[in-house]
Structure formats: C-alpha cells, structure tokens
C-alpha cells in the first residue's frame, strides 16, 4: 500500500469560466500534518471542498488509501474516516454544546435511523463528549446553546465535534482563526495530540501555528501549486515570500 493516504492528480475546478483550482497534484503522507497555505482566494478551501466532495471536481482524480473516491458522496467520504471542519464556523446553533458533540459521537453507533430507540441510549456518550469539550476548554458551556457562544468558542466547539468522530484524516480549515492567543495555544496542542496516528491536512494563515505543527507544506497560488516542502524550505522560497508571506516573515 502506498505511503500516501490522499493523492490527487490534475484536480481542477472551474466556476463559470473562473478556474479556482487548476491541475493540483497533492500528496498527503499517512500520519503527517500537512499544511496548505497560500494567498486569499488561492483555492485552498475549494481544494478541501473537492477532496471532501462538497464540490464536484471539473477534472482530475482523488485517491484515498489508493482507492478512487472521485465519484463518491460527501457523507460517504466522512464515513471512510475523512472529516472536515468549515472555514466559517459551522455548529448546530439551537442544540446545546454537549449535543453538538454528541451528534458526531453517535454516528459510529449505527443507530442513527433508529426512530424507535430512546435517546437515553445516547447518554453513554456524555462522558466522552464532556472530555472532548474539556480539551477545547468548553466544559463549562456544555449546557448552553451553541448560538450563544462567542465566535472563538464556536470555532473550538467545531473542532471538538470534528475530533469526536475519531477520523483517520482531519481536514481543518483555519482552525485557529478568530481565536485569542491562549486558545490558539490550546488548539495547537490539541491538534498535536489528535495528530498521533492520524493524518491532518489543514489550511492556516497563522504562520507560527503552521511552522510549529506542520511536517510538510504545500503553497497554493492562483489555483496552482507554487511550492512544496518543509517550513524552512518554503519560507525561504522568494516566490512564496512574495506571493504570500510578505517581507515580515522572510
């Protein structure tokens, strides 16, 4: 079996004549933390949407563990163990924080269609849910409605929900954006912890987070791969500095 858990070849997406992603060959090594960076509008989120099949690719193929998933449905991708978070916070606003996490935890039980079964059958998941909330610093909000959380906390909740599925591959779209330092640190260490035995592909603009976490970095610009390598390699690439990092990071 190949070393790469995700491989794309010639991945392309155009919207009415505008090509957002253009022939991207991405290879994500099993067990790695792989960062996708690039200027705004480079096509990072679109890549995520393509890989998780929230968008249909215009061209190209996507392999997951060597298997072609180009024609699969998004929910099935998640079931294969590849779960994403969203760039703009996506919670279930009128469910409680605890329930938000539990919705993710309950999927592997396989009882999701059991309309005849009592929901107390889900109570067994509460401990695990609380543990996850604790890890992102939301334990004290467990009973609150997700809608009433501040923006940063919604992001944390979303991460907890994603991790709850215990996926093999996590795709995190700007996990720390909108967070305070303290939370960033907490989230960074959480990502580090969950990364054990998992593969993470993340989009992130916070370079200190990127440099701290990632094993490998792909830089996208205008829908194409501009550079790839370790943080050091990438950050010393003048093209990347020019297009993305700016003089402050050279």
């Amino acid at each position: 079996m190949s070393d790469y858990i995700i491989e794309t070849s010639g991945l392309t997406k155009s919207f009415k004549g505008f090509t957002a992603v253009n022939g991207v060959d991405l290879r994500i090594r099993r067990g790695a933390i792989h960062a996708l960076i690039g200027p705004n509008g480079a096509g990072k989120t679109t890549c995520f949407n393509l890989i998780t099949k929230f968008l249909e690719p215009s061209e190209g193929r996507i392999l997951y563990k060597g298997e072609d998933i180009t024609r699969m449905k998004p929910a099935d991708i998640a079931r294969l163990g590849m779960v994403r978070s969203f760039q703009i916070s996506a919670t279930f606003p009128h469910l409680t924080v605890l329930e938000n996490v539990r919705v993710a935890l309950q999927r592997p039980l396989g009882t999701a269609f059991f309309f005849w079964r009592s929901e107390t059958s889900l109570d067994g998941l509460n401990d695990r849910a609380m543990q996850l909330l604790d890890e992102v610093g939301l334990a004290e909000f467990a009973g609150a409605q997700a809608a009433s959380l501040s923006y940063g906390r919604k992001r944390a909740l979303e991460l907890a929900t994603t991790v709850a599925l215990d996926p093999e591959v996590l795709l995190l779209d700007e996990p720390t954006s909108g967070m305070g330092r303290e939370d960033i640190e907490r989230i960074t260490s959480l990502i580090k912890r969950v990364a054990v035995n998992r593969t993470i592909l993340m989009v992130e603009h916070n370079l200190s987070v990127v440099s701290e976490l990632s094993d490998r970095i792909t830089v996208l610009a205008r829908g194409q791969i501009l550079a790839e390598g370790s943080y050091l390699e990438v950050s010393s690439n003048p093209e990347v500095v020019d297009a993305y990092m700016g003089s402050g990071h050279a």
Partner: protein
Amino acid sequence: MKRTDINTAGGSPAQGPGRFNSSTILYLVLLALALVAPAVLYPIFLVKVLCVALFALAFNLLIGYGGLLSFGHAMFFGGASYITGHAMLVWGWPTELGILVGVVFSTLLGVVAGLIAIRRQGIYFAMVTLALAQMVYFIFLQMPFTGGEDGIQNVPRRAVFGFIDIANDTTLYYVVLTIFVFGFLFIYRTIHSPFGQVLKAIRENEDRATSLGYHTTRFKLLAFVLSAGLAGLAGATKVVVFQIATLTDVTWQMSGEVVLMTLVGGLGTVFGPVVGAAIIITMQDYLATFGEWVLVIQGVTFVIMVSLFRRGVVGEIAALINRVR
C-alpha cells in the same frame, strides 16, 4: 438568512431523573383526563380533535424537528381517507384493514412525494409539496370513485377486530384515543431517539451534518415518510368517525389549516399541535353558532396570537414555567 425562532422547549433531552419523573407524571395526568373526558365533553367532538391533532402532530414532526415545511400534507390526510373509505364501503373491508390500507397508501405516497420534494429546501420544498398536493387533488377530483364534491358517503362503522362495537360514540372515542396515544408515543419516541437527534442537527446545519457522515437526504426522507404515514393514519381514522371522505380534506386549505394549528399551539413543542388542533376545532364547531363571525373571530385570534404569544400556547406556557424556575 433569517434566524429561525423554532422553539425547542420540548426538544431538549430530559436531563436527570427528576425531570423525567415530573414529565412522566404530567403525561399520566393528561392520559387520565383523556380517559374521563367523554363524561364531560361530547365524545364526537373529542374524537374529531384527536384525529386532527394526530394530523397536526405528524406535520409538526416534519417542521418542528426536521425544519421542513410541507404545504401539501392534505394529500396524505385526505388521500388516506379516500382509500380507507373506498376499501370499507365498496370492498367491504373491516375497520382495522381499512385504516391499514389508508396508512399504507399515504406512506407510499410519502415515499414518492418525498423522493421528489426532499431535493429542495426551504420555501422551495414547501412549494414542491404544494404542487404535488395540487396534482393529487386533481387526480382525486377526476377519479370517479371519489364521487366528486358529493364525496364517499355512508362509510360503515364496522366493529373493530370484529368485537369492539364502535357504533357507540363512547366506545369509538376510546378506540380513537388508543390510536391517538399510539401515534403520540410513536412521534414522541421518534423525536427523542437517536434518529431525532440527527434530524434536529440536520435542521440546524445540513452541510455540517453531511460532513459528519450523515446522508442527510435519507434522514429527511425517512422523516417525511413517517410524517406522511401518520397523517394518513389520522385521515383514515377520521373517515371511520365521520363516515364520509370528501374533497375538503385534500384541498390546499386543509394543508394550510394544519400549519395554523401547529403555530397556534406552538411550533416544535410536543403538545403544541394537540392544543392548537383543539383550539381551532373548538372555534370551528362551537363558534359556528356565532353565525357569520366565526372566521373573523378566528382571524382576530391569529393576529393576537402572533403579536403577543408568538411561541404558541404551549410554547408560552413552557416559557413561563422556565421563567418561574
């Protein structure tokens, strides 16, 4: 997008044993009241309330918990009543089989309509269901067996299981109450089930639910079909009670009425639809002697309701209790 002010008063999981007990007691008290009700109130009125309330409950399952506004639920309600009526009158089927065939019909219709409608969201979903219901209306209007505006008349009330004589109104009441309680428990369990949890999550944020690995359309379809089947159960039962099946029950106004009942009682609350149905049926039947003012009084009630008690009767009471706590 606007924030949806859907009340989740009855939707949150019962936390802790105390809460569970108090609500169990509440249900038992209500059941006891229902058992003695025919001594006080006219049984046929009660039976009608139960039938329509069951219809409203079915509708509420879809909107209150699935976030799907169907504007064509009359096709299941009225459709089942035609089928049941025909089966019992022309084919001479026994009551329980007649009701069953009505439910089967509406469930199958629910699958077909659901497969078509479920692909659209929000107002478009409502409009597709409306369109389908109008087509079903047209078909029933054109089919000879429905008797046009005369309807199917004189549907017999045959003894249930061959020995429970429902010609007697009080007996009939208990039979219908049994059906209603069955329907109610069914819905209650559905809402408070693992399925119900996912359904609520989908209502809240469908993309997110998909990304967690849920095939959201399948959940919505199942909710739609369950709701259609229960609406059919309500319609089939109503035929047995009133012994007629008419076009009125398949019109869009009927679809609209169930929306009103649910709102008046309290959207997304467990008891809301029941209370709403009771209020509207009471208005229709008891205010009928106010002559031409029935509808105006109804209108004034709606306006006041929306302006002052938006959460619906049950929703407002629940909010009041919460505040007192």
